[in-house]
């Protein structure tokens, strides 16, 4: 066997795939062969590294050197410099935007330095398509321990001690959920994994499935042992083809190794898992709707009780856990619940993965211990707001959540603390908005989403969200009326109180939270017919302020419909008959001269 001196861990997550990592991999392999290095240097395609904004990214083992934004054109130089001559190739290394210094080692980069990898402990380290690599990282030890040494009650006790709560959004204690399902009478029970990650702006579950699918399977097997189930289902969004492919490979390999199927590890315990693909309906992330969908019906929720722990899939007792929750389980079993509970706050234990995106420098996947402040996530890890713009708010929990403004940025990541400031932990989407985001328009965006995804079963959600959307549309169109704000509040509280499922009950949250923190923007739209963020087209004049205009001509060059007249050293002018109101010039103007 050849001795491999260096391994190149090339990110193969969806983000890096789409910035070209597959072609880069081929190019590196070609270059290595050309220099005869292919026997000592190996390229490994890993799961999502997390630093999606800089993709494709690569980590050089064992030195831990990090390369970003790889392109096919740069590959020959990279291979020659680093692997032939032995000096790191500076051009592709990370430069700290503040100090302008190059940071060669991955763990020294602030984005990684403030994180704590539990759920993502294998990201970028193993090839997710090879089960042996997972096992080499103590994979399936949790299953071995749970199946051979522990009783179902001991497993449940350990999970309860850990204090882990559902990572899908609601935060229900996982151990308790299992206990209810175990106590339910019946021979046939199901373990379900919710991988229907529908919140726009959330991609943690996808990355976990892509980077470490066996961790999720392991969690499911342990859950099955705890509640005595023989069959599991993973409900995955159809929009995640790579995650589905990696799961299929993982299940096949686990079966070959006797980790799924009959008599797992000779313990006499049988359990198998099937993948079920969703068909594009946000409401199917709700537990009862998800089960309906697996049954092949319209995915509509039903009233609870009975809870799924008593009557779930095909009316049998079922446990439904989120991907991230399940990915934690094996480590809790191996290291003990006390170990897990040692990190976090009073009521929220362990770590939480956030999908950090929007108007922030370092977009990507971030795992932090519970109790970390939002400010640390956005500024220390996220690197702050690009283009010198001002922070406005961060939206947590997607369309069911709310926004957190500047004054509450020191709120810790904790289920209860986040609810107090009017948002929810949710599944972990964290979308940062700067001053150019209009909060009324944002509320309208979420309401448009909710009313489109409302399944139509209950009246408050079906009719109420439509009415809210109509009012918000009117406000953004400059036709808002003074009484609109009261009507919005009344509708929102009524829907929250009376809707059937979580989608409706939380749907008005973005409206309520923007009303709470950004009432000034609503007032400006309604009373002054003005959009302070300059996003609502109907409220813009499309004129240029000659006082502010620096005569630079950027707007003229960017206009797609030749509607802007400009000559050197002259103030630009917009011809309204040609203008298509696309807002391109608003984005290009650095001085805010267009209004």
């Amino acid at each position, binding site marked *: 066997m050849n001795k491999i001196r260096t391994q190149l861990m090339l990110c193969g997550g*969806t*983000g890096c*795939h*789409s*910035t070209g990592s597959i072609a880069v991999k081929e190019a590196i392999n070609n270059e290595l062969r050309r220099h005869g290095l292919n026997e000592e240097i190996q390229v490994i395609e890993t799961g999502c590294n997390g630093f*999606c*904004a800089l*993709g494709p990214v690569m980590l050089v083992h064992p030195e831990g050197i990090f390369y970003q934004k790889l392109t096919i054109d740069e590959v020959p130089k990279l291979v020659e410099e680093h692997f032939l001559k032995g000096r790191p190739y500076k051009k592709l290394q990370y430069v700290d935007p503040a100090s302008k210094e190059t940071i060669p080692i991955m763990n020294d980069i602030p984005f990684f330095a403030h994180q704590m990898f539990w759920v993502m402990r294998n990201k970028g380290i193993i090839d997710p398509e090879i089960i042996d690599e997972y096992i080499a990282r103590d994979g399936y030890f949790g299953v071995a321990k749970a199946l051979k040494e522990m009783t179902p009650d001991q497993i449940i006790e350990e999970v309860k001690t850990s204090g882990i709560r559902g990572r899908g959004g609601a935060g229900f204690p996982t151990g308790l959920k299992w206990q209810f399902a175990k106590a339910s009478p019946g021979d046939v029970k199901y373990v379900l994994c919710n991988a229907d*990650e*529908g*919140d*726009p*702006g*959330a*991609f943690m579950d*996808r990355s976990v499935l892509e980077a470490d699918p066996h961790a999720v399977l392991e969690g499911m097997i342990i859950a099955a042992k705890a509640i005595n189930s023989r069959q599991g289902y993973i409900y995955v969004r*159809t*929009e*995640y083809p790579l995650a589905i492919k990696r799961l299929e490979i993982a299940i096949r390999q686990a079966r070959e190794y006797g980790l799924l199927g009959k008599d797992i590890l000779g313990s006499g315990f049988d359990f198998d898992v099937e993948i079920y*693909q*969703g*068909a*594009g*309906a*946000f409401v199917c992330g709700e537990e009862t709707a998800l089960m309906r*969908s*697996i*049954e*092949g*019906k*319209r*995915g509509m929720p039903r009233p609870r009780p009975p809870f799924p722990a008593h009557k779930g899939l*095909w009316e049998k007792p079922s446990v439904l856990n989120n991907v991230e929750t399940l990915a934690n389980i094996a480590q809790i079993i191996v290291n003990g619940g006390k170990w897990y509970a040692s990190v976090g706050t009073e009521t929220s234990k362990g770590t939480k993965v956030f*999908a950090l*995106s*929007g*108007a922030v420098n370092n*977009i*990507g996947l971030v795992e932090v211990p519970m109790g970390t402040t939002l400010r640390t996530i956005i500024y220390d890890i996220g690197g702050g707001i690009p283009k010198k713009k001002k922070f406005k708010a961060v*939206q947590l929990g*997607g369309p069911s959540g709310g926004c957190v403004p500047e004054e509450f940025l020191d709120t810790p990541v904790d289920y209860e603390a986040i609810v107090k400031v009017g948002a929810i932990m949710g599944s972990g*989407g964290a*979308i940062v*908005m700067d001053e150019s*985001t209009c909060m009324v328009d*944002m509320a309208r*965006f*979420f309401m448009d*989403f909710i009313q489109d*995804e409302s*399944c139509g079963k209950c009246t408050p959600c079906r009719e109420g969200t439509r009415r809210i959307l109509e009012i918000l549309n009117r406000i953004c169109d400059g036709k808002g009326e003074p009484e609109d704000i009261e009507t919005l509040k009344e509708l929102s509280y009524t829907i929250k109180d009376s809707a059937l499922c979580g989608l409706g009950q939380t749907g008005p949250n973005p409206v309520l939270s923007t009303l709470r923190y950004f009432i000034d923007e609503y007032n400006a739209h309604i009373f002054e017919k003005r959009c302070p963020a300059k996003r609502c087209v109907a409220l813009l004049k499309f004129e240029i302020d000659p006082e502010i205009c620096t005569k630079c001509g950027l707007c003229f060059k*960017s206009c*797609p419909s030749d509607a802007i007249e400009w000559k050197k050293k002259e103030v630009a002018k917009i011809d309204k008959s040609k203008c*298509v109101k*696309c*807002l*391109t010039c608003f*984005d290009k103007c650095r001085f805010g001269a267009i209004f």
Partner: protein
Amino acid sequence: MNEDFQHPDITQDMLKEINEIISTNKNKSGASITVLRNSQNIVGYLPVELIDYISKGLNISSSELFGIASFYSLFSMIPKGKNTIRICLGTACYVKGIKEVMERISNQYKIKEKETTPDRRFSLETVRCLGACGLAPVMVVNQDIYGAMSSDRVLDVLDRYK
């Protein structure tokens, strides 16, 4: 199975494949979505007549199957164009200006969401977050993903798809 079923967009080979899908899934509980998905993959969309045909094969009422097909956004009952444009309407893309990209496409090709151009060159679809927020705003044409899309670049990109 009704051998006389005919539809201009469905060839005999396609029908043969669909028949196979129906017979393998016939007695499985909860298979209706799988059958619809696989059939749509073969034909490209789900003509109403085909839904009717499948419902007979699966022995469930056509209204129930139609109800399922219309509930999930994956299923389309109108023909698809040669190229499918999918616009991500996730929050991150929205914050970074996907709305303007969408409007530019709509204005240029005179199509709205879920429509196909008369020459069947493009179909315009929207998706609820592709989970590639690091690349926002994101547009997908067929299998090609375009990140950091902007309203001034989008038409140049689409021009490559004839």
